[in-house]
């Protein structure tokens, strides 16, 4: 069966072969890339400007825990893309299962992050404590907000899925949800590297 770029966004206007909703999502993601680029640029300037004020991150952060959490987010990307593949194949039940799994994994990621934040604050590292604290909590906080927004939207998409909103012929909304979710994963790939490993 051939999958078409436009047919799955049934009824949506198309421009240059791209459904306008998909085009709009990519433009939104492009703006989000610039948003996080600004934050990461600030991190580079602040850390590079005062390297003596930056702790050895493995002494302060629980790298194994967050490495596991990174794995959780990657698995959620797999479940999200499998939800999309399921409805492409005309399997709405499989799509619903994978969407629920994605939302659950996203919520689990946030809960682990909350545990990490709580432990850090108990050990004396808070947003207002020092340079590292303010940078760390700002970057992970904004990413966490994006994950939270994604989880809440996923809940809405699951609700729509159970109401039969997505079919093999028309499932553009699932693709749009997937694009946002994978973007959130991509951002974390870079944040995990620069905050926890470098």
């Amino acid at each position: 069966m051939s999958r078409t770029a436009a047919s799955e966004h049934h009824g949506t206007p198309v421009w240059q072969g791209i459904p306008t909703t998909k085009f709009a999502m990519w433009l939104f993601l492009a703006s989000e890339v610039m948003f996080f680029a600004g934050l990461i640029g600030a991190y580079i300037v602040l850390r590079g400007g005062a390297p003596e004020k930056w702790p050895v991150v493995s002494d302060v952060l629980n790298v194994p825990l967050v490495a596991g959490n990174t794995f959780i987010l990657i698995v959620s990307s797999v479940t999200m893309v499998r939800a999309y593949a399921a409805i492409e194949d005309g399997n709405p039940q499989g799509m619903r299962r994978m969407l629920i799994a994605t939302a659950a994994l996203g919520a689990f990621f946030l809960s682990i992050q909350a545990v990490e934040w709580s432990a850090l604050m108990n050990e004396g590292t808070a947003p207002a404590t020092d340079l590292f604290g303010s940078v760390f909590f700002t970057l992970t906080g904004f990413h966490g907000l994006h994950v939270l927004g994604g989880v809440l939207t996923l809940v809405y998409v699951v609700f729509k899925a159970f109401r039969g909103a997505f079919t093999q012929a028309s499932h553009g909304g699932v693709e749009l949800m997937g694009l946002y979710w994978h973007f959130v994963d991509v951002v974390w790939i870079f944040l995990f590297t620069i905050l926890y490993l470098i």
Partner: protein
Amino acid sequence: MTEHVVTRPRPNYMLVFVFLALLTAAEVGVAFTGLPKSMQVPLLIALAIAKATLVGMFYMHLRFEGRVLRFIAVGPLLLAIILSLPPLVDSIGHH
């Protein structure tokens, strides 16, 4: 407006996941080796870029999209690099 029909093959999502998991393990391994920072940092960034590329190409299906969407996806990344490089070079130059 007429629909433009494009045939898109399906990637092996689980194989991509295996690569992502291995790259993540490699990143953690690199971070805890005794390599000097001057080698660790470029290696870690390269591994992160590889993971992001896999997600973008195969999970976001950029591998199979047209030039317009690829430009929208890649363009801001280039701008982000341009935004980040001068402060990075500047901070290296001062230490």
